[in-house]
Structures are given as structure tokens and as C-alpha cells.
């Protein structure tokens, strides 16, 4: 069982310099309130793991506008002009990871595997400096697990056990990041009584969730 916490309490849990996974895809399925909270609190030197950087004011955008992020691990940062400028000036370090590799590296960390063996990136710049493993005559890149101090995720529904249900394409990275953060903080759209989410609708069992954020300030 969880006593839901406020945005401020959640923000206080996250120190400067933390590695933070932030779910979402082009601003959809992002825990927006905690993003704004971190930006307003002026967090510094975060390492951010996120599929993309959405746009200047959406998704992880406010974190860049407030200069919270020192290093970014993502698959795409194309449409955020602040990210582009910070990268150009050298103040933002960026590691680009193919999207399928990114999500599978996060899953590997979450499910206790030593890494993944993927055909994606073999023979490209992505393979530089990485180990190639041959399996039955085929070459695969060994890509390492990707974990984080915090996973910040968004859900449609949550109960006080921390069980989560997602909605449509707002699902995306959420259930995977919920496996991989050392501390998992969820910002749900609604909190319902325990037992109200049918067992087969739960996509993330509450045992994975450390903190649930109140739906009201």
C-alpha cells in the first residue's frame, strides 16, 4: 500500500546529479506534472534517459529550458530547438541509441539480463567500440543494460497498491521503465480504490512502484 505523495514531495526525492528515466513518446504518456516540478525546483546535472525530447514546451522540454540536464540518452532529439542549441554549444552531452535497442536495454536491466544481443546497428557507426557476439554464424551487437536511480512514469489509472493501467499509445515506454528504475515514481491520471483495476488490466504490478503522486496539488 502507498500513501500518495505530493508533487513537491516527489521532486524532493530526486537529488541533483541523479540519473532519471522519463517515459513517454513525443510528449504522450509523460508524467508532465513532475517534469514541471523538477524544472521549477531548478534541479541540476541530471542524466536523462528518454526516448525523445518532444518539443520545447512538451514532454521533457521544460527540463531543458530550465537547464536541468547535463547528459541525454535518447533515440531522437529532432524537434526540440533548446536541446539542439544546448547540444551545439556543448553544454549538453548526448548519446544516441536506436529506439529498439534503447527499450530493450532498459528491459534487460529490469529483468536481470546481462545485456542484449541485437542485429540492429551491426556494421554501422552504432557498433563502434562495442563487442560483437557471434551466435550460429550471425553477428549481434552486445548492448548493455540501462538502469536509473529513478524512473518517472505516467499511468491512466493507479490504485493504492501501486498497480498501473495505461491507455492506448500513452503506454509506450512506461511499463518497461517501471521495471528498471531503482525508485519508481508514478504520476497517474486517476487513483482508484484497491481492487478496482481488474487483475488482467494491470500492466505494471504495484510491487514495482515505490511512490504514487496525488492527482491534486
Amino acid at each position, binding site marked *: 500500500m502507498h500513501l500518495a505523495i505530493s508533487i513537491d514531495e516527489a521532486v524532493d526525492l530526486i537529488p541533483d546529479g541523479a540519473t532519471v528515466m522519463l517515459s513517454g*513518446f513525443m510528449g504522450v*504518456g509523460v508524467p508532465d506534472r513532475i517534469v514541471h516540478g523538477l524544472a521549477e525546483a531548478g534541479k541540476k546535472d541530471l542524466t536523462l534517459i528518454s526516448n525523445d525530447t518532444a518539443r520545447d514546451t512538451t514532454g521533457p522540454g521544460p527540463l531543458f529550458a530550465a537547464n536541468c540536464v547535463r547528459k541525454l540518452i535518447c533515440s531522437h532529439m*529532432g524537434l526540440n530547438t533548446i536541446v539542439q542549441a544546448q547540444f551545439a554549444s556543448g553544454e549538453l552531452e548526448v548519446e544516441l541509441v536506436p529506439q529498439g535497442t534503447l527499450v530493450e536495454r532498459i528491459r534487460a536491466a529490469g529483468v536481470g539480463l546481462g545485456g542484449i544481443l541485437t*542485429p540492429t546497428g*551491426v556494421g554501422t*557507426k552504432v557498433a563502434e567500440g562495442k563487442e560483437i557476439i557471434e551466435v550460429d554464424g550471425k553477428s549481434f551487437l552486445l548492448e548493455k543494460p540501462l538502469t536509473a536511480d529513478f524512473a518517472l512514469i505516467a499511468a491512466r489509472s493507479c490504485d493504492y497498491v501501486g498497480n498501473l493501467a495505461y491507455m*492506448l499509445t500513452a503506454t509506450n515506454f512506461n*511499463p518497461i521503465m517501471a521495471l528498471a528504475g531503482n525508485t519508481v515514481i508514478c504520476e497517474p491520471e486517476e487513483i482508484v480504490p484497491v481492487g478496482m483495476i481488474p487483475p488482467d488490466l494491470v*500492466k505494471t504490478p504495484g510491487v514495482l512502484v515505490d511512490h504514487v503522486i496525488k492527482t491534486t496539488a
Partner: protein
Amino acid sequence: MDPKILIARRVAQEITPRSLVNLGIGIPTLVSDYLDEDMGVFFQAENGAVGMGHRPPEGMTDRHLTDAGGRFVSFVPGASTIDSAFSFGLIRGGHLDLTVLGALQVDEKGHLANWMIPGHYTPGMGGAMDLVTGAKKVIIAMQHTAKGEAKIVPECTLPLTSERRVDLIVTELAVMKPEDDGLHLIERAPNVPLEVILEMTEAKLIHGPDVPEMQIGC
């Protein structure tokens, strides 16, 4: 006919009934406009949508249902949503029947470069490397040249997207198919002479004396 529409119509002919298809941004997106809805094709997006339909009208959008560009979409009957790991499981695992993508360069070996220009800002490969590596069939849909520069070259000078050979290249001038022995010119666009295609293409094109015209029945 608008060159982009010509390309989209020709690519649409390659799509088989009930297949799972991922369309990249730009010209590839147009392909779905030229398909018969009765074919039961399911459009997939990297963000976990399986079965996307048209953009809904204003007032019927929902912020939980978007395509990989974050644009509102609708779902066709029988659609489903999956998480990102599952989505790339479909892509990498060979369950995606077709992806249609744009290109910066394609070469005689069928190698594709579409994510990076060294020295320029690189927004990121997104899902492109997984799509090209994993899809059952990869079709490149693009303009034949870019500002007069050849895009179909002997060997890509830009960083590759994958080691995998693409299956078909469709431009407003021609349809080309990379094979073991090189790049075959298999169709000309309507009323485009062979010489024009050869002049606009830096790669060596293998072709017979008569290259048939695309049949796109406008």
C-alpha cells in the same frame, strides 16, 4: 502527376492484403491514401499503435492516441496497443511485413543511409535502424535526386542505417531493385526516357533494352 503522389501510388501497389505496415515520415506517409481499405492492411507505429486509421476530426481527438510523430490518429476496428518493447519486438522479430522509408542515399548494394550527415546536426536514428534491420521487406520511397545531387550512388558516403539490403527503391523516375549482381532498373515512370534516368543516377543501373513503364493507372 505530383512526383510525391506518383511515388506513393507506385509503392501502394507493393502492399499485400492483411499485412502489417510501418510508414516513415514524408512521402511514405502518403502511401496509405492510395490503398483500398478493404485490403485489411494494419498500419503500425513505433509508439505501439497497431491498426492506425485516419486523423480524426477536430473535437474527436484523444491525447492518448497518436502516431510516432505525436499526431492524433484514430484506430480501425481490431486495432490494439502494445508497449515499446513489444512494438520493437514486432519490428526486430520479422513480424512487420513492410516498412516504407525515405533516404539520404542508397547504393548499388542496396545499402541505405538515412540518419546522419557528418558535420551536420543529427537529430537521431529513432526507430530507423531497427526497421531496416528487422522488417520483412524494406521499400525506399524518395525523390530521385536532392537539389540536383544524386541520391542513388555507387557506394554510400554517408553512415549506413543497416547492413541489410533494401528490397525496392521507388522514385518519381524509376523503380529499382538491388540484387546480388547490382542494382536493377525494373520500371520507368510514365513518359520518362531511359536516358534521363541513367543521367540522374550515379549508381550503375542494370537493365535490358526495354524497361517497362510503371502501371499506375491514373
